[in-house]
């Protein structure tokens, strides 16, 4: 059995199920009760004020409090609205969540799930459009989840809430995300297992989160031009499924990484570096990154479109590689 759900509804389903399952799961954040993004809808009526609660605006405390709750046996699910607000609550993320388990010699587990929207495209301007996950990836101690489908959103979030580590669950901001089939009942997606969204033999395109859609569109377009693209969706960036990616690159000899985060020290750079180290022998051309350049997101929609990766730039990157063998052309 499957059901058609919007990504945001799948998130809502996962929260309902996990809060039912485990009374130690709590949700809080700014305006979670009325649920501005929709993912928390109905939870307050159903679970009441001890389980889900609006907070004052104080991100430093919201993230720090999650550490305290985790230390005493609760699993805090914190909604932070936009990933830009990670910066406002960054101390407990960078200095506590990512470090406390090692610092205490393994005494604490930190079952924490942070939810936030990311990315541009809605004219929200720079302070509400960051794809702020590379910053998290560099901390070394937190999981980073970037679902692209409603089914994965549900399955990854459930895994996160059953987990005993801090996990950041990143929703594409705005409009509730994509619609897709979600398996009925218990549906868990393990961390660190990529999904091959489309098989192909000429070029591997690894695309992250909201970028899976334009990557698939590009693959369609390229198929018409006789280029066979394999589209991989890592689903989680930490942990990262190296094996699936390396296997694909072994087959195609080419890699394009598509990521909405900024390029410098971004997820695309990390992934390119892994492949340049571990599948170098298989590469038959340069690794291309299609990313948002190193800029703050502009407000004007035309300027946003200019910097956010889209189908055209992906097609161009693939075409710059397809057909190359070994080091024939530079």
């Amino acid at each position, binding site marked *: 059995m499957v059901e058609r759900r919007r990504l945001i509804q799948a998130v809502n389903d996962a929260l309902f199920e996990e809060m039912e399952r485990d009374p130690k799961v709590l949700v809080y954040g700014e305006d979670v009760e009325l649920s501005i993004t929709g993912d928390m809808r109905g939870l307050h009526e159903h679970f009441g004020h001890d389980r889900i609660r609006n907070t004052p*605006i104080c991100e430093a405390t919201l993230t720090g409090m999650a550490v305290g709750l985790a230390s005493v046996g609760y699993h805090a699910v914190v909604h932070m609205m936009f990933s830009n607000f990670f910066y406002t609550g960054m101390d407990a993320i960078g200095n506590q969540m990512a470090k406390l388990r090692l610092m205490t010699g393994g005494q604490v587990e930190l079952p924490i799930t942070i939810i936030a929207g990311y990315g541009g495209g809605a004219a929200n301007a720079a302070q509400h459009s960051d794809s702020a996950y590379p910053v998290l990836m560099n901390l070394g101690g937190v999981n980073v989840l970037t679902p692209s489908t409603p089914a994965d959103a549900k399955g990854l979030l459930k895994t996160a809430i059953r987990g005993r580590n801090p996990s950041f669950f990143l929703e594409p901001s705005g409009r509730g995300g994509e619609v897709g089939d979600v398996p009925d009942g218990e549906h868990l997606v393990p961390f660190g297992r990529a999904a091959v969204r489309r098989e192909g033999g000429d070029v591997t395109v690894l695309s992250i989160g909201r970028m899976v859609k334009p990557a698939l569109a590009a693959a369609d377009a390229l198929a018409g031009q006789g280029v066979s693209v394999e589209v991989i969706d890592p689903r989680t960036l930490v942990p990262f499924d190296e094996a699936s990616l390396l296997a694909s690159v072994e087959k195609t000899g080419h890699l394009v990484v598509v990521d909405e985060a900024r390029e410098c020290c971004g997820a695309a750079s990390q992934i390119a570096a892994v492949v340049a180290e571990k599948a170098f022998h298989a590469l038959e051309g340069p690794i291309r990154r299609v990313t948002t350049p190193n800029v703050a997101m502009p*407000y004007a929609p035309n300027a946003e479109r200019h910097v956010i990766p889209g189908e055209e730039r992906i097609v161009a990157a693939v075409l710059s590689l397809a057909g190359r063998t070994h080091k024939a052309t530079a």
Partner: protein
Amino acid sequence: MATTVIDRRTEQAALRSGPSSAELLELYERMLLVRRVEERLRDDSAAGKLPGAVHLYIGEEAVAVGVCAHLGDRDYVTSTHRGHGHFLAKGGDVRAMMAEIWAKEEGICRGMGGSMHVADVSKGILGANGIVGAGLAIATGAAFGAKLDGEGKLAACFFGDGASNQGVLMETLNLSTLWELPVVFVCENNTFSEFTPSREVTAGRIADRARAFAMPTAEVDGNDVVAVWRAAADAVERARSGGGPSFIEAHTYRIQGHFEAEAFVLSGGRYRDDEEIAAWKKEEKDPVLRCRATLLASGAADEAALRAIEARVLVQVDDAVRFAEAGTPADPALAETLMFVRDEGA
């Protein structure tokens, strides 16, 4: 609003009891401008003409206007996500703001910032800000600069009741007290943080947080432009004369939604009554209507004079919208060229 710092200082003593009739008319016109601009934004947003979210200040105009009346171009303000009122009250250009919100090259930020980031640094408007509470530290820094300059300048910092729960408030109250900085903290308590009533997330009285630092503090009816004007006159004089920071808590009410897509986003969810909103729109409460009534009652202006002002304002708003609509779309290449000043080793 364009009078210089020096002018204001010499006038101050005489005006302490309240604005003159001429000044009150000026305050009225400025409030009305903010109101009409935002009504137009409300409509254009509903019509899908504006790209991003707009957060409107309707109902709170007396705060920005009452405070900024005491400021010159060389004074600074920091603002919030709800910043059109501060921008206009501080003398920002209506056309340039409108074009910004319409994402045009002619916009005050060349279409790169939008509604949440309107700024005109040449007029001391350091910017609306999408991060709740961020203006507090920026204003404190600007006030430190103003103090070092030694020219009697100051920084006014507008922030909400919601922002009052960000720790940076306490940090800046502490630091500005210690360093005797010329900053006026203006808390716009409009009883909501987004869809959460203030009382659910804000313990105690906000003004008491400043009183804990023995900071001179005033709580005023933020819908009475004269009351705001008076409290601000004191605070500004204190700042200019080296007396350090002050705190004003202005009690007011947000009439529109948190932002213009609110009803859509909440899809039926409610956090306040229609009656409550209606009450705040009445002449006894609404800052614009109230000021209008005062002007008439005091004889400072008659209906005809007010109508003339109202017509003038509407012309200004229409002109600004036409200007914005006719503007050139923002230049997408700016994102890449404007990040850094390109003059150094880089």
